[in-house]
């Protein structure tokens, strides 16, 4: 945005404020401003949790257009990392990237306590599961002991994201369309159904709060975001909505075709 445009916007905002004050009157206007100030002071807090290597950081990067470092081989995040994102010019969202669990016998005890401490202080818990790995005993244990010990209210705040569905067998993701191939789509549905059943058994999380996606392919990011907004309840409106565009990863011809579908008149 150029400097001119931005000062234009500020001017517009000032004008609107004056109009609003005239309509509401002094006391009501102050009440409203107080309310806004109060809400801004408490940004919604999103904790991103899950086992080691499930793609917590990648998910944050794609959901919020960030550029945090990703580790592909060995241990990644060691300490919880909180970042504040701007939603509008001065409304913020706190995203907490947690160290992965289950990585090693020794480190786990410390991380476990860290998770338990954090739970009561967040508005949304995004629990990420690696959908192309089939072992779920650790997820069940952690979810049961960390997440489900809370009240029903706590459970409502949980979204379970099944990440990396693009790697589910037979593993023939359609690179050109950036979309699952038909037989992979069948596997994805079966795999995710199995995971949902195994996790629901333990956690009593509502099936609508379990969403499959692929952060790397930007596949179904909107569905994850929607579930998070729902889970955040009263604070849902404060969550940022824009994510990375999956079409950008498709073939350029596919992108062009998709544009003509959106704007048929230009064709």
């Amino acid at each position, binding site marked *: 945005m150029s400097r001119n445009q931005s000062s234009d916007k500020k001017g517009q905002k000032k004008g609107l404020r004056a109009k609003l004050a005239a309509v509401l009157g002094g006391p009501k206007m102050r009440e409203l401003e107080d309310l806004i100030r109060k809400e801004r002071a408490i940004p919604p807090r999103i904790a991103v949790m899950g086992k080691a290597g499930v793609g917590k950081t990648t998910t944050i990067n794609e959901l919020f257009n960030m550029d945090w470092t990703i580790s*592909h*081989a060995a241990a990644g995040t060691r300490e919880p990392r909180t970042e504040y994102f701007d939603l509008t010019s001065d409304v913020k969202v706190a995203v907490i990237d947690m160290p992965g669990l*289950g*990585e*090693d016998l020794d480190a786990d005890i410390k991380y476990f306590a860290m998770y338990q401490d954090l739970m009561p202080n967040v508005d949304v818990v995004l629990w990420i599961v690696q959908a192309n790995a*089939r072992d*779920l005993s650790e997820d069940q244990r952690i979810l049961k002991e960390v997440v489900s010990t809370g009240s029903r209210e706590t459970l409502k705040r949980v979204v379970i994201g099944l990440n990396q569905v693009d790697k589910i067998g037979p593993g023939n993701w359609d690179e050109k369309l950036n979309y699952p191939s038909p037989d992979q789509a069948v*596997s994805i549905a079966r795999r995710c159904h199995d995971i949902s059943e195994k996790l629901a058994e*333990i956690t009593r999380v509502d099936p609508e709060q379990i969403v499959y996606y692929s952060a790397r392919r930007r596949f179904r990011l909107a569905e994850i975001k929607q579930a998070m907004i729902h889970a955040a309840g009263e604070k849902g409106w404060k969550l940022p909505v824009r994510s990375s565009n999956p079409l950008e990863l498709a073939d350029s011809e596919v992108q062009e075709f998709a544009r003509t579908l959106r704007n048929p008149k230009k064709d």
Partner: protein
Amino acid sequence: MGKTGAGKTTAVNRLFGLDWQTDSAVACTRELNQALVSLPSQEPSYRIQVVDTPGIAESQHMDEYYWEQYEQAVLGAAVLLWFFQADTRVYKPDQLMLKKLSPLLSESTCLIVCLSQVDNMGPGDWDIVQNKPSHAQLANLELKIDDLHEKLSKVVRLDRASIIPCSIKCGFGLSEMLDMLVGGLNEPQSI
């Protein structure tokens, strides 16, 4: 042995020309699969018994349910082939199971770790032309092997050289795996 979904059955099917059932979505090996096979490429030809097990860590309490089968599988085994999915980073279930199994392994049991599905390793840009890991994947692979070696060495004795990267889907690392297996079989057996 190894976690569910690591590719155990797919690998033994490919290595020994078997046709045991596999599934890309859910766990399907529920009991021990056993077969006597020969390695025709070797002189003299080997006859070996292959025992394929249900995967570990599928769900809470399933490891206990399968425990007797695991016991039966490893007792007296000349080689324990352990599968670990390369694009995952959760070692704890493997550590716990290997620790529990170690008293059952004999001095001469040779542990080989198959680092499977390396084509899926980050950043996921497998070299299709030469059918091998990309430069970036190769660098990550070295780190991965170090990490896996460090984590498993806490509970069992394991040579770093006994960790073999492979991708059954791409037909990568199969001959290295067979060589390692034959080497393990040639170790003097204690009876």
